[in-house]
């Protein structure tokens, strides 16, 4: 699933480690989500949305199939 996580993180000047700390996950998880290699669970998606003060559907884009 594509997402705007990297751009949102960059806008705030956060490193992947910074975002990982805020989300309570590992830096590896943040990187995997940003690269589309891993889709977060619903609770984590809500945490991400709350962290960036945005809606889930504004951050994550369903795959076009």
């Amino acid at each position, binding site marked *: 699933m594509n997402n705007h996580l990297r751009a949102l993180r960059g806008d705030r000047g956060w490193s992947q480690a910074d975002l990982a700390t805020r989300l*309570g*996950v*590992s830096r*590896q*998880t943040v*990187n*995997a989500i940003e*690269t589309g*290699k*891993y889709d*977060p*669970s619903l609770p*984590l998606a809500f945490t991400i949305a709350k962290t960036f003060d945005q809606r889930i559907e504004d951050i994550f884009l369903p795959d076009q199939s």
Partner: protein
Amino acid sequence: MRNQKTLARLFYLAAIGYVVLLPLSIIALRRFEFGVFAPVIALIPVLPVIWGGFITMKRIEQLDELQRRIQVHALGFAGIMTSLLAFSLGLLERVGTPQLSLVWVLPVMIALWGVGIQIAKWRYK
């Protein structure tokens, strides 16, 4: 909930316990007669292994969702590969391959678990 450093220290203690107790158990069994208690002496090295397994489970509980998924994949890989190796070696015994002690199953599985972790991590890079 214990932090990662504490769990790591406890795991190292378990590993040290295993490294110390295994040769002591072997030497003791060779030098002394324990009669009906010989199996107890032989199984003493299992205690730190059980403790290490308990610590590992606690550690896995503290991992985030992706890391837990990686551990599931790695353990599945280790389990399947260990089973295949054991099955294959069992079949090869029929054609003269020396019998391997079951004591090697755990170290082989742990090694394959480590390989499985690296493979699973690579998938998510």
